[in-house]
């Protein structure tokens, strides 16, 4: 009976560790993907002289969390940075065609 309990406990433990490790791996993948995209888009925005300070902050927060192996937070910050960088590029591109409408004539 005690053998059975030990086996069942071991199986549960392996399952828990496996799930946690899978979740961390998924977060890490999400972080790396979002961080790479955000960095590329942020550089593109800078080429328009329009890098956003908040993107830089979000990228740094993502990196700091990843350095502490907190990939859940890292993924969250990296995805935030990605959204901000994407918006900064869209703003830059749209302004290229509309800024002249603001000129006083």
């Amino acid at each position, binding site marked *: 009976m005690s053998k059975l309990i030990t086996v069942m406990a071991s199986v549960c433990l392996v399952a828990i560790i496996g799930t946690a490790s899978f979740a961390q791996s998924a977060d890490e993948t999400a972080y790396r993907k979002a961080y790479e995209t955000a960095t590329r888009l942020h550089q593109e925005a800078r080429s328009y002289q329009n890098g956003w300070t908040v993107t830089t902050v979000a990228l740094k927060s993502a990196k700091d969390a990843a350095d502490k192996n907190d990939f859940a937070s890292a993924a969250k910050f990296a995805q935030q940075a990605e959204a901000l960088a994407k918006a900064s590029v869209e*703003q830059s591109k749209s302004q290229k065609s509309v800024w002249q409408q603001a000129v006083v004539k």
Partner: protein
Amino acid sequence: MTRKFLAALVVLVITGRGVCAAERVDPAADLKAYQSSVQREFPNVKLKDFANGPYTMDEGMRRQWEEIMQFPPYDFAIEEGKELFATPFANGKTYGDCFPNRGIGIRQNYPYFDTKRGEVVTLELAINECRQANGEKALPWQVGKIASISAYMASTSRGKPIDIRIPDDPRALAAYNTGREYYYTRRGQLNFSCASCHTQNPGKRLRGDVLAPALGILASFPIYRSEWGSMGTVDRRFISCNTLVRAEGLPPQDIVYRDLEYFLTYMNNGVEVSGPATRP
């Protein structure tokens, strides 16, 4: 087939006109249109008073300013700048040797487009280039001694109308247009352009601040800002404005910032130099 051809022709004509319109930049027409629009909006403010920025827009602020001006906080900078300006470099030369009229009463002509090098030269750039040409290290761009030297030089131009020229050189016009585009382009997470505050909403409040029109802004530099607690150059102001709208500032004296200063100072033509000055 004929329809397709006609449609293509119409598109070509329309886009062609669009390109021509985009490329046709007329600084004199810009200046007239801009100054007229500001003066229509503020009919009771004289042209020279625009150099006093928000203090001309709000009666309460003007009273505060009159009290501040009994002991102007920039006076120390003028004194320091005067001394630095007159102190010889290690090789015995002085700043006066680098400038027309020995640097006295010339602020109203800066920035200018240097046709030899094909770019805009600001007063601060000329000050640091003078130092380097005489074997001295360049000064930091935004605060400190460079602001003091600039303050002293500006003080010798007080009352002289700003007179920025755009020479007959396509590169000068391109520099003007780069500055113009930067001024009117929205940027940063807050989606503001320079024009959002200083052309579209002068006289209105942004939180506690009364927004000054672009007309007169660059007549007053360098400035002592209470917010900073010290003097600052145009670079400091540009970077500070960018940061406020959550956009990254450019490096001081970046070519685009110089072009922006060129455009903006040209828009101030005719306003008398009042720098150095104080701001909230």
